[in-house]
């Protein structure tokens, strides 16, 4: 477990993302490695777009539909969302409110 340096909201995000992705891929969450590119598991554009909707609904962030290609692993997406969230708090995030 030493490979997980950040136990904060980042880890929660990672766990939540793994659960969502596992549903789309019809695999047990334990099989999803957060450092492996999601395309290697067979994630397609329909899944990728749905993941964006999930992020919007559960995390409250509007993200680009290319999220899963721009940030190809669970770890990358989690880090990106954490960035957006911290940016939101300091009011310096991207103009993603409407």
């Amino acid at each position, binding site marked *: 477990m030493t490979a997980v340096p950040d136990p904060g909201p980042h880890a929660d995000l990672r766990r939540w993302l793994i659960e969502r992705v596992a549903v789309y891929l019809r695999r047990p969450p334990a099989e999803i490695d957060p450092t492996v590119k999601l*395309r290697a598991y067979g994630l397609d554009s*329909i899944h990728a*777009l749905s993941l964006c*909707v999930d992020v919007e609904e559960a995390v409250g962030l509007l993200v680009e539909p290319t999220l899963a290609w721009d940030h190809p692993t669970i770890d990358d997406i989690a880090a990106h969302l954490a960035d957006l969230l911290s940016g939101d708090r300091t009011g310096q995030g991207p103009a993603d409110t409407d």
Partner: protein
Amino acid sequence: MTDFVTHVRARLGDDREFVFVRDDGSPARLTFAELDRRARATAVWLAGRGLTDQPVLLLYPAGLEFTVAFLGCLYARVPAIPAPLPDAGAPHANRVRALMRDAGARLVLTDSAHAAELSGFSACVADPAVADPDAWTPPAMTAGTIAYLQYTSGSTSDPRGVEVSHGNLLHNLELFRLLARNTPVRRLAGWLPHYHDMGLVGLQLQALHAGADLVFMSPAAFVARPVRWLELISRYSADWTVSPDFGYAWCTRRVTDEQLAGLDLSTLTMALSGAEPIRAGTLAEFERRFAPAGFRPTTWNPGYGLAECTLMVTCVPQGQGVTVRRFDPSALERHRAVPLPEGTPLVACGPVSGLDLRIVDPDGFRPLADGEIGEIWVSGPSVALGYRGRPAETRATFRAGDSAQHGRWLRTGDLGFLLDGQLYVTGRIKDVIIINGRNLYPQDLEEAAARANPAAGRSAAFGVRRGDGGEHVVLVQEIRRGQPGDLGETADRVMDQVTREFGVPLSLMLVARGAVRQTTSGKLRRRHMRELFLSGTLTPLYAELEPALNDLLETVA
């Protein structure tokens, strides 16, 4: 009656309407009478610009403005070319340019929201407000007049536009009308894009032809929240819908128990499935999931068709339900349909009706008996005129016959067989790959893969059917000798590029120079490469295969 415009204008009124439900749930409405008024004004505007008989590209978001522009083109005898709005980026812009070049189109029409971003194509906003709808005079039209060009065939670099005539359209829509038997369609609901042949003909033009309401939404809204499609059916008491297999499967997977509780699908009498292989499992699972909402198994209408035949070739008529039969999988591979109780399930796609159909040995052009698998050939008034500006390809595809003389048959490139009066589709000999109802062309995938790898030789892309019935892209790419760097990194780059550009996962095999086979005339042998891949006889330098595919290859081995 020989043209679609005269047919539709005989059914105008204020009691029928098109309702586009925006992504926020609010409806935009136009009655048939208002659609007709705006279409006439658009036609006057087009004719005033001297565009009669000049093809025009329509790049619109989902919504009513497309319908007005499309009808305006029909009213003006301007062949319309519906196409998807290009995303930002070179590949999409190149596709638009290739379409315009191929069709000889000089004008792009769009809505005011997209005019600025499409300024690179000199896109115009048709302004019917400045034209007088009463100034419209119907141009001379016959059954042979081209109504529109459907560009769902051919790759980006080599697009092929199917020329659909007014006669084709009227005949195919009459086949739709007959499907309904004694209960004509009253209200259609759907989400398919208007540039897809099933969205254009199966939803928009069917509604106009039948004098039925159409309630529709954007494809993006459907993918994001599939329950919205079922809510359209529920809220507007729709009796017809159409979708590829993937749409029904996506609903079964995504709709929650809570959402299900609010749905009423009992008004639905026709649910067409087509445009991609139909999985028996999809139908059974949807039925089970939505029975509590009032969905009846007799509602299904599995069908088969293609743009080259306007849309529909065969479809199960209303009320007959689904016929699933099981066949020996190893016999299917040898092109024989041998019933086997525990075998591969195939869904019957309806009887031959209103068109001639035969199953033909694709090599010897010999008609085959029932139960024998061959290429599906079709003939009749729904078969389109041909590919625009491509006489050689038109002859090869649309004019097949027993001899080298002019034939009357359309070669569909799909494989199937007839049994007990029903058509079953088993595969295809053309190279297209169909994923989530979308046609992907191997040339486009190969070209993107080559762009990502400067050391690439030839590539071959093809589709393979996974164990769950879904199609998966496989790309075999040659590596030139002396390729610098790590093959794993190269593979990663190629896969990133293809996935990003096409939104599909893929399996990649890097092979040595000369491993991708060609014919003596230099034509890529994709089907042969597929056979070599599936039989495990290719020697990879490096391979990254999707897990589901690994399982498949192990079964073969």
